[in-house]
């Protein structure tokens, strides 16, 4: 990753961008954090509500054990230390989609602390690591819709109470690209561990960015601003550059940065300050009296760490060592957990790893993308392995195999059956091949005699003619061998 961002104005050259990211991720539970309402998306407004998430007088929260399990899994995946005791706290503020007038979150003693995430490699191969300050649990607020009815704001509390984890990074990122890499790596780890859909466009992953500027070489942090209203990873990258450039302009002209919340306007590509109220940000945190401390047994914490599925970085390292694949191949095969598992199943069924990689990356991925249901495999790993082996063993040619693949995706038949029925099995029988060779030599005396005379270049032509005579069924390798033998024998 280059230190210089070519899209930034020259005023930024003297300054270093410092970025920290706060990411909220919705957990994949069936019910909400503190009540048994469904947390599913898409219901009619306020259909998924109950006394607890409506904050009716007298209602009380009870924590969802699956939310705890997923939050701990995420903490382990980020190499964070899970605290045996953590405390929930009230974050008090008034907003119509926050029914209690406070959010149940964690403040002083969060679920987990001091994690890290590798987001790429330096030129010398060392990993670029972003430290993670904390992972804590909290509940989501409802949705406010401002432009549906004039003069009013419409509130839907279906989302109120859905469990979230907040992942807070240290200000370790130094460019928009690093921020993007962090988000992509984070999303991948979250998906691998089935903690969340982690989809920014759908709202199951949200990002607030903290960015500051300081003169290159300076170790003290500059004043940061918080950028909100980010809607995509590329939007995060663009917004960071726009805000950093703004800060550089201010600093370069002798001004100072004031701590401010900025809103990203994706349409205009601008950041502008949010209106700040006097007395803002006094959340009056105190420990949640309705929830005793969460206590996790050390044995349980250890067990859940052991039970982690293989993480992307480990899988990538293993693919490199075991299968001798290129970094580019590995990146595609490990982009998501299902692809990686599928690939390995194909290899375990006997296919050559390199060949299998090729098939999965091109043919399989293409078919998967075209398929209406992303969860259904277009072709079973066993069948694909058979096909790959058929090519490796010269039973069919590579181009015949491509045809077989397409048919197999449609009909789900075993590849060998398709090959037989379509007459695509390569002929290697020596008599048959000899027959065709003789036939071709006889039909093309001029070429034949020049070949016999030592013109080896004509071997390719002869192979082509044999392929034509055999209607593609001849195994070109075998034909070549035969012809080479004949040439050597002077026939």
């Amino acid at each position, binding site marked *: 990753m280059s230190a210089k961002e070519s899209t930034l104005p020259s005023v930024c050259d003297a300054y270093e961008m410092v970025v920290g990211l706060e990411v909220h991720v919705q957990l994949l539970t069936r019910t909400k954090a503190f009540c048994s309402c469904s947390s599913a998306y898409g219901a009619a407004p306020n259909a998924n509500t109950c006394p607890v998430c409506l904050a009716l007088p007298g209602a009380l929260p009870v924590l969802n054990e699956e939310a705890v399990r997923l939050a701990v899994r995420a903490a382990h995946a980020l190499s964070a230390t899970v605290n045996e005791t953590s405390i929930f706290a009230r974050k008090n503020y*008034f907003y119509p989609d926050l029914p209690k007038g406070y959010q149940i979150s964690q403040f002083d003693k969060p679920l987990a602390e001091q994690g890290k995430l590798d987001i790429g490699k330096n030129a010398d191969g060392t990993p670029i690591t972003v430290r993670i300050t904390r992972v804590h649990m909290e509940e989501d607020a409802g949705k406010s819709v401002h432009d549906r009815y004039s003069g009013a704001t419409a*509130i839907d509390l279906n989302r109120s109470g859905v469990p979230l984890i907040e992942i807070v990074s240290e200000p370790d990122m130094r460019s928009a690209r690093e921020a993007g890499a962090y988000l992509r790596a984070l999303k991948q780890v979250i998906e691998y561990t089935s903690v969340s859909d982690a989809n920014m466009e759908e709202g199951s992953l949200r990002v607030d960015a903290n960015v500051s500027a300081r003169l290159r070489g300076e170790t003290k942090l500059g004043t940061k601003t918080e950028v909100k209203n980010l809607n995509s990873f590329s939007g995060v990258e663009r917004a960071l550059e726009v805000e950093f450039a703004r800060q550089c302009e201010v600093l370069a002209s002798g001004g100072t940065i004031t701590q401010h919340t900025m*809103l990203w306007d994706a349409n205009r590509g601008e950041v502008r300050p949010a209106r700040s109220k006097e007395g803002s940000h006094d959340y009056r945190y105190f420990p949640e009296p309705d929830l005793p401390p969460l206590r996790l047994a050390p044995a349980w914490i250890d067990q859940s760490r052991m039970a982690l599925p293989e993480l992307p970085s480990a899988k990538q390292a293993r693919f490199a060592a075991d299968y001798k694949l290129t970094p580019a191949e590995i990146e595609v095969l490990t982009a998501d957990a299902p692809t990686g598992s599928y690939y390995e199943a194909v290899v375990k069924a006997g296919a050559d790893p390199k060949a299998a990689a090729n098939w999965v990356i091109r043919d399989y991925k293409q078919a998967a993308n075209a398929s209406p249901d992303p969860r259904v495999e277009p072709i079973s790993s066993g069948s694909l392995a058979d096909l790959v082996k058929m090519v490796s063993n010269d039973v069919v040619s590579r181009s015949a195999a491509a045809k077989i693949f397409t048919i197999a995706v449609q009909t789900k038949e075993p590849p060998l059956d398709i090959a037989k029925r379509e007459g695509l099995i390569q002929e290697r029988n020596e008599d048959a091949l000899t027959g065709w060779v003789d036939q071709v030599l006889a039909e093309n005396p001029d070429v034949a005699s020049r070949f016999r005379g030592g013109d080896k270049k004509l071997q390719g032509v002869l192979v082509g003619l044999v392929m034509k005579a055999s209607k593609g069924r001849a195994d070109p390798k075998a034909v070549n061998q035969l012809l080479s033998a004949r040439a050597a024998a002077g026939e």
Partner: protein
Amino acid sequence: MAVSRDDVRHVAALARLDVAESRLPELVAQLNGILSHMDALAKVKTTGVMATAGVGDAAMPLRADIGPPIPLLHPLESFAPQMRDGFLLVPRLATHESAADESDE
């Protein structure tokens, strides 16, 4: 620690209460009166004393990730002040620009 009129105005705003200026002197006096008795606490040594976190050592009980939810015997429509098409309605945020504005005080 003496509470001033500005302090009372400030906490009233935080608590979304409209305190009439005419009431401020009385409230300032009452709050200061109450808080003056709290000064006794400052003199108590509590180094090494943990703040109370509930009665007993029982840890937080958890619930299984299943429904059904607690039912409402009468629907939201029957007690909500204003609804439309299933949404709760509130007056538009007076200085609204976007939701992110209002989420901080």
